[in-house]
């Protein structure tokens, strides 16, 4: 893989200032840098996964202004001035977010590739709807593919988190 951080700066660049997990950062990157690569390659936050690259799998989901988005289909430049939250921020001062705990308790992951996206979508759902039905959970994760679990345990994991009560909503937000 080419490291975008290393490409010559003669290409058009943009200064991107945004908040990531509560911390203000500024980087000058090639204007074409996608948010997923900005997060992984420029900020070294590799919890967010980069999968299909075609906005189908949802492994790359992060929050922008509290809404889940597919970071492979957003320019870092477009996120400038906004609040980005990644899976790294789910764990708060009191320990894991209930959604993370749910995935542990209910075996919500096998290889773990889809997990960061599933966690961010699951947390967003519970923030909006603290007691979702199975159908509502299925709808919420319908933009996220999992090749391992068959989804059943992911749904149980989110339900577990709902029953365990909502979190304080993470460390920084």
């Amino acid at each position, binding site marked *: 893989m080419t490291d975008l951080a290393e490409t010559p700066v003669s290409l*058009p660049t943009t200064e991107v200032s945004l908040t990531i997990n509560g911390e203000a950062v500024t980087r000058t990157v090639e*204007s074409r840098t996608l948010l997923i690569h900005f997060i992984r390659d420029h900020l070294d936050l590799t919890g967010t996964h980069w999968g299909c690259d*075609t906005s189908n799998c949802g492994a790359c989901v992060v929050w922008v202004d509290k*809404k889940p988005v597919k970071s492979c289909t957003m*320019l870092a430049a*477009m996120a400038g*001035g906004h609040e980005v939250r990644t899976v790294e921020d789910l764990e708060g001062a009191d320990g894991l977010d209930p959604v993370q705990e749910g995935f542990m308790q209910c075996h919500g992951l096998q290889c773990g590739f889809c997990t960061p996206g599933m966690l961010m979508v699951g947390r967003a759902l519970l923030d909006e709807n603290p007691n979702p039905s199975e159908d509502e959970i299925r709808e*919420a994760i319908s933009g*996220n593919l999992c090749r391992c679990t068959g989804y059943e345990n992911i749904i149980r994991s989110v339900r577990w988190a709902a029953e365990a009560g909502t979190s304080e909503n993470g460390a920084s937000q």
Partner: protein
Amino acid sequence: MQVPAPFVYERATSVQDALALLAKHGPDARLVAGGHSLLPMMKLRFADPAALIDINSIDGLDQISVADGIMTIGAMVTHAQLLASDVVAQHFPMLTEAERVIADPVVRNKGTVGGSLCQADPAEDLSAALGALRASVTTIGSGGSRSIPVRELHDGPYQTVLDENEMVTEVTVPLPSGSSSSAYEKLERRVGDWAIAASGVSVSVADGVISEIGIGLAAVEAPNMVAADAEDAARGQVPSAELIERIGELAAEATDPNTDQRGPADYKRHLAGELTKRALRRALTNAGALTNEGAL
């Protein structure tokens, strides 16, 4: 790794600013709204703009309002906003039903109404639905403002009639009169996929006859994404099971689908007819014009 080719990024702060930036960067500049159609095309080099003008920071383009018999939907209203809107569901159930099956909830957080229409993808659900509802787009360009019916916005696949220096600011949808309703029927291979075929039907009924009807078709290559002959045949008619059959047949005849990985042409044509019948039946029932849906 898929990354767009290099381009200059600019952020517009107002509609006038966006137009000035389009003019500054010339014919190879493109607006970017949600980016959920344009960025994938750029990754694949189907689009290669020299400059991208980001219109997400322009205030006031993300409102939905109703006044004087017209609903106005800002160009930057997202699919998620349209889906969540009570006033949209109240007046245009078809739009809510279409939104439920457009992409997935995460994509719906980014994709916009303006981007959907201007993408001019023959499978775009909102182009069919808003065409059926006889919506128009309001644009602002170097020559001032104009209104273009959604039915006349596209100039072939992925082409619009917009000038280089022209942007859509809002969509206006006339509120239906009399007893009316609408419905959207889409068949997809899996959740979140584009349509194999889809049909949206809007009807108004007055004095026992169909006073106005709109039929939009997605993914089946109908001219302007509507079934105009079927609409003409239905107007002024008394709703009946026979009429629904006939309108379905005419809608199927309006299509010229392509055989592709979503299915063969004759299957899609059949679907266009069947989905139109289902949507028309539901719209008529919800408008109170068919008393016994089960009998049909």
